[in-house]
């Protein structure tokens, strides 16, 4: 670690120079962390709101297939992404929820059609084959080459009002996907939410990404070339 992290206590002391400073610092206390909600990390059984146990099991297998455990870190299953989905679905608009549950059923039906068994019981090769097919659209450029396009804004034909509803609510950016076949749409939505659930989990942030920020720093260091050194992180010369 090259970053100079300061301990919480040291930071408090440092800031404590100003009168009343301590009371300004609730989030440096352990208060927030004490209230930490154990959605992942605990091995507790799920308490499902929307998904049936078999839907939950299928989903766990699916999210794990999208982001699996590997030598570096556990995957989406251990990060309890399926539990996160269950919560997202429980708060989604009814139509979206139904749409997604129908997608899950269709996905399972596709597994049965192709391999004669539900998704949960597919072997690794079969999962690979199925997901390769439903994700093939990702490799295809959906938009034409845009570089030469002029910006036209007010002379576009007026479009029908749209309402952008996504399973993820405020965290999802506008979904530019063109309308796609149900299985592709289901995969796209599920992948997006899996990414969100996984990389916002403790496992995703700390074990997988090894994200180093959100700590109290004496000083942000950045690229060492700025201190006249060759930088060990990027190999750039001073």
């Amino acid at each position, binding site marked *: 670690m090259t970053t100079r992290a300061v301990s919480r206590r040291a930071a408090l002391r440092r800031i404590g120079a100003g009168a009343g400073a301590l009371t300004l610092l609730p989030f440096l206390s352990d208060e927030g962390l004490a209230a930490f909600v154990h959605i992942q990390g605990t091995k507790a059984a799920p308490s499902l709101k929307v998904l049936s146990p078999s839907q939950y099991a299928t989903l766990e297998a699916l999210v794990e297939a999208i982001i699996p455990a590997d030598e570096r870190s556990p995957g989406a299953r251990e990060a309890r992404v399926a539990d996160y989905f269950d919560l997202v679905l429980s708060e989604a608009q009814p139509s979206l929820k139904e749409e997604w549950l129908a997608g899950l059923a269709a996905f399972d039906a596709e597994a049965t059609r192709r391999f004669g068994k539900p998704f949960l019981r597919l072997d690794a090769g079969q999962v690979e084959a199925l997901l390769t097919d439903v994700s093939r659209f990702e490799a295809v450029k959906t938009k034409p080459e845009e570089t030469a396009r002029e910006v036209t804004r007010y002379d576009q034909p007026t479009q029908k009002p749209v309402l*952008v509803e996504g399973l993820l609510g*405020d965290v999802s950016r506008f979904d530019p996907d063109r309308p796609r076949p149900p299985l592709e749409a289901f995969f796209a939505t599920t992948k997006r939410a899996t990414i969100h659930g996984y*990389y916002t989990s403790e496992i995703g942030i700390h074990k997988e990404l090894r994200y180093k920020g959100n700590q109290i720093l004496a000083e942000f260091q950045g690229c060492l070339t700025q201190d006249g050194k060759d930088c060990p992180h*990027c190999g750039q010369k001073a």
Partner: protein
Amino acid sequence: MPADPTLDVDLAAVTDESRKLSASIQPRSGPWDVIVVGSGAAGGMTAFQLAMAGIKVLMLEAGRMIDHRKEYRTMEWPYQSPRRFRMPPDHRPIAVAEYNFLDRPYGNNPAYDKYKKVTSYAGNTFTRNWVVNEKEHPTTGTQYSWVRARVLGGKTNFWGRGALRYGPLQFKAASHDGYDVDWPISYEDVSPYYDKVDVLLGCSGTKEGLMQVPDGIFQRPVKLNCVEVHFKRAIAKMGRHYIPGRAGVTTDGLLNSKYRARCMGRGRCGRGCDIGAAFHSPTALVYPARDSGNLTIRPYSVVSEVLLDAGTGRAAGVRVIDANTREVMDFKAKVVVLGAGTLDSTRILLNSKSARHPAGLGNSSGLLGCYLSEHLMGPRGSGFIPVRIGTEPTLDDGRPVGPYIPRFRNVTDKHPDFIRGYHFQGGGGAYEYPGMAHDLPGFGKAFKSSVRKYYPAMISIGGFGEVLPRKENRVSLDAVVKDAWGIPVLRFDFRFGDNDLKMAKDMADSAEEMLKAAGAEAIKIERDPLPEGWSIHEIGTARMGDDPKTSVTDKFCRLHDVSNVYLADAAPFVSGGTQNTTWSILAMCWRTMDHLKERMRVGDV
């Protein structure tokens, strides 16, 4: 599912305090010398300058007080919430595409009936208690993503901290390219005030000697991370600068404030900085002003109009609608300063109609509401910088702002397609959430390892382009629609013009050009402008000038028509350059208050 502690910010104490405060302050509780409307950058600086000079000030703020200890949730992790920073299910921000296509008022859409609160796009789990409900605060006319925050401190509670000065190129833009008019003042008039703001509030940056964005009195700069250093070196060969962002943050600490500590590099400032390193009006200006004993703050006070003394022709005070009780009351003072945020200040003036001022106060020129300008955003580019692809992530985001590319168009050269210019903001490296994962194809171990491979290498820059001030870009009062307090709402007539859109095209092209020069992989260019208003840098609508026929205020931001009404926000600004506005609001406001203090000292008001 256990309760979600992050969705339950307990606001009972602060709302209770706010109610008690507003109930205790009545028109007869005065007298006050000056009324200031609003408590953001403009209202905060007004109150600070006057109260510190021994002048009795009444601050009328439409929102409640803020409990910054609880509400600035700076270091929260997403996994502390099972909802992972999503809003509660009955809250909904407007999505970018919806701005373009939904009818106004946005909050009226039947599909939104099921939500209790519909916010502008800036509503998120950290800001949702501050950003207004579009259902209570409608707008009409052309599309405009108007972000408003009604709470002590206004939008400064979650602003982006980019603290930039206008320079000669902005104040004398017309002399430079012949379009429109110059400001009636010059950089020399304002630069001493920028200096004072830098010293009082703390500003971090590097001296670069660039006339398009003048240097200030800087505290220690924030550094660049590895991908940014690579990018800087690459575009330096094109003669372009990539400099540490200038931040309205104290990086060395301030001797003058017990509310503010120096920056500790957590990088979560947009949620409110709980140690007060970032400038937020409450901790930086309002509380110190209150400590002087000269400032009375009345929350929940929605100002509907400025009252006129028919005898003297001067303002007598303002009319207030209590946001809770709906009680209407008139507060009196010798001077009224409007700092409700550019467009809300103009709205109050438009709504202040009398026999003498039938089109609104200060509107004898007919120009009140005209020349609305802001910055065009949207064109942007991103990619991966090879020197960091496949490396272990470093701590790349522990700082209050990312780097900055100052304007390079039409500074010394002349672009054939458009006048004025744009700057870029943005940086790279390993941020907490790997947003780029959404753009990577595939699944399984290959996908997972590609996320981690590209994670430290990401770079992304977005443009801010000067929208030309044009008379026809304007706001007026809607004849029919009213807000939840019965006050007519603003109707927008605002469109990007030809020059703006040509510039937008060049923004995207030059983003691409620079990313290519840096050897970035998987370059992604977005070319479309974001909806109007997106920059949250509204300026104009009560422009300053020497001639009362062609301007609304004089060069001290005082209405030509009424000598004791001042504007403290960006409404008097003539043009907006490429620079984010807040540091200029603060400097201009200080200058205006020096003028007012002098007038009060000599007994002129």
